């Protein structure tokens, strides 16, 4: 068995026979001709045919990969008809008195060179698109039919490089995966592979010898096993089955509402820890972001992040979520999350120490910077702000004063901000016990079950010795949740859960019965929880 690693384009497993794919690249010959008029006519006809073919491909791609990804073929058609490209071909035929194939090949080379010499990776990769359209015209001119695309059995395609048109033309049912030596993860082919959900690797030194051999492709690690043994195959078959199951779930549940059989709607949101997690939120079809932990902004830097960098991060997330709710939790540093430049003293009991809102209310400069960034970003989407580690009404009142003063500042400077809901984390027993009073101050509660459990049961989460008595389903915790929901609702507050318990599928039904309005979970839990919600019958 041979083991190789490359760059993975799509996470997934493929097991099957390798087909070594070779383009029938014919060398284009330069042939002198007297009748340039006839040659130009031949070219014009081929060009028309190329556009027709690309329009067909476009239609096929729209069906398979959606309009957005299919647009590449529309652009290819434009390239075929581009004035400069056409002029160059006609000019070469006329002045050099040569055949159309040669004129197209030379022009294609020149135009792809233009892209290859650019300093940006994306535009560099476009050289492949120019080659692709030029080859298409040449194939039409020389009467070549692209025969290599008819796959007879399910295969893993191994090729030097693949053009987008080649990828789409292949029978999707029989295309298990592809492996290329060249082609960047920016290439259109890579983008198409992602959309068609086909595992793919690039950057692997391929060998013609592999043709017909059984291979396993592990898109999670970017590994390719050639001549895979039975153990390897069995191991990956299992992984593949799990993948298929979760993908089916995804297919069936994407776009569906989070609603019980008797019509109660639950807001099913996702938790994220950085800007790049948004892609995962969208891929798993969450209805919003219920917990955006803002700590990463502070932990990834060597100094306090300025307003501008925070604003950009919040704005990016809000814009990408396109009007869906984004709940940002303000700085929750201290305890197990430390940043050197805060110069926090060592504490014997940091979980109960100087952390989160306790820091923010004392060092209001840090707090105000974050609030300014958040409020400014709220003009670009649906942002809500949530405050951690609350134990008293007084804290909430002070927070609201500060928010008010920051808003006044912004108004004075003529800087726009949107409507933002304000909410608090319920993660201390104190907050639960006074939740009726707190509910009168804010728009929503989000229950942080991890801390709430550790404070309620007096069990240190970091102490492994106590794992056996750490009961996350402890009735005390569940009653706390119930109490929070009731008190919240009494005073017009909606109530959610953003801790780990929210993703506990054994409790989903109980939470819904308690009257929970929102569950915020890791992106990968969104669809499994959606499945449960859609099967709940309250009566």
């Amino acid at each position: 068995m041979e083991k190789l690693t490359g760059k993975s384009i799509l996470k997934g497993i493929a097991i099957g026979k390798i087909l070594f794919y070779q383009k029938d690249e014919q060398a284009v010959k330069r042939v002198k001709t007297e009748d340039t008029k006839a040659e130009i006519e031949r070219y014009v006809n081929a060009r028309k045919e190329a556009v027709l073919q690309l329009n067909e491909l476009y239609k096929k791609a729209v069906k398979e990969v959606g309009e957005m990804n299919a647009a590449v073929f529309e652009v290819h058609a434009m390239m075929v008809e581009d004035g400069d490209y056409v002029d160059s071909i006609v000019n070469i035929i006329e002045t050099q008195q040569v055949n159309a194939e040669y004129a197209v090949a030379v022009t294609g080379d020149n135009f792809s060179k233009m892209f290859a010499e650019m300093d940006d990776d994306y535009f560099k990769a476009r050289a492949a698109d120019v080659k692709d359209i030029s080859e298409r015209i040449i194939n039409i001119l020389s009467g070549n039919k692209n025969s290599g695309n008819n796959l007879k059995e399910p295969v893993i395609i191994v090729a030097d490089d693949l053009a987008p048109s080649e990828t789409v033309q292949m029978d999707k049912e029989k295309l298990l995966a592809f492996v290329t030596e060249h082609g960047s993860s920016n290439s259109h082919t890579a983008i198409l592979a992602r959309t068609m959900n086909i595992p793919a690797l690039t950057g692997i030194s391929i060998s013609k010898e592999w043709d017909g051999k059984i291979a396993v492709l592990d898109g999670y690690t970017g590994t390719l096993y050639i001549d895979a043994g039975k153990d390897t195959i069995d191991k990956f078959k299992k992984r593949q089955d799990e993948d298929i199951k979760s993908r089916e779930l995804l297919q069936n549940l994407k776009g569906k509402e989070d609603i019980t059989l008797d019509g109660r709607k639950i807001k099913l949101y996702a938790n994220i820890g950085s800007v790049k997690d948004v892609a995962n939120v969208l891929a798993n079809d969450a209805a919003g972001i219920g917990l955006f932990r803002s700590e990463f902004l502070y932990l990834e830097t060597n100094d306090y992040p300025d307003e501008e960098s925070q604003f950009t991060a919040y704005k990016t997330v809000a814009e990408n979520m396109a009007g869906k709710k984004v709940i940002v939790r303000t700085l929750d540093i201290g305890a197990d999350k430390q940043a050197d430049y805060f110069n926090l003293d060592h504490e014997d009991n940091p979980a109960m120490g100087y952390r989160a809102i306790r820091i923010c209310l004392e060092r209001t400069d840090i707090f105000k910077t974050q609030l300014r960034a958040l409020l400014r970003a709220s003009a670009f989407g649906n942002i809500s702000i949530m405050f951690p580690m609350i134990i008293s009404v007084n804290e909430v009142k002070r927070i609201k004063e500060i928010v008010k003063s920051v808003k006044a500042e912004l108004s004075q400077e003529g800087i726009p901000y949107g409507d933002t809901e304000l909410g608090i984390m319920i993660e201390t027993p104190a907050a639960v016990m006074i939740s009726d009073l707190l509910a009168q101050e804010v728009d929503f509660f989000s229950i942080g079950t991890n801390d709430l459990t550790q404070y309620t049961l007096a069990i240190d989460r970091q102490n492994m010795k106590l794992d056996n008595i750490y009961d996350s389903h402890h009735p005390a915790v569940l009653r706390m949740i119930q109490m929070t929901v009731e008190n919240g609702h009494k005073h017009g507050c909606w109530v959610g859960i953003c801790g780990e318990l929210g993703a506990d599928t054994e409790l989903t039904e109980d939470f819904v019965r308690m009257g929970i309005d929102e569950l915020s979970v890791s992106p990968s839990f969104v669809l499994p929880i959606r499945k449960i919600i859609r099967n709940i019958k309250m009566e």
Partner: protein
Amino acid sequence: MQKFTFKVKDELGLHARPAGELVKEAVKCSSKVTIRKGDKTGDAKRIFNVMGLSVKSGEEVEITVEGENEEAEAAELKKFTENI
């Protein structure tokens, strides 16, 4: 002659799809439409001209519209470019 500038917001810059859309819009105009980035200019009705400018995210480009209908056409194009 009508002129306006816009900043490309798309993460990949003025890549194939938005470039193609821009060309499609420009072709609808009866006016001459020119696109400029820095000291490089191109015919906005030609895809290779537009992509050849290699406009990256955050970069500013200028569109010039010249013709009988320039005012209305520039306004249409401006509206379109706001979403790129």
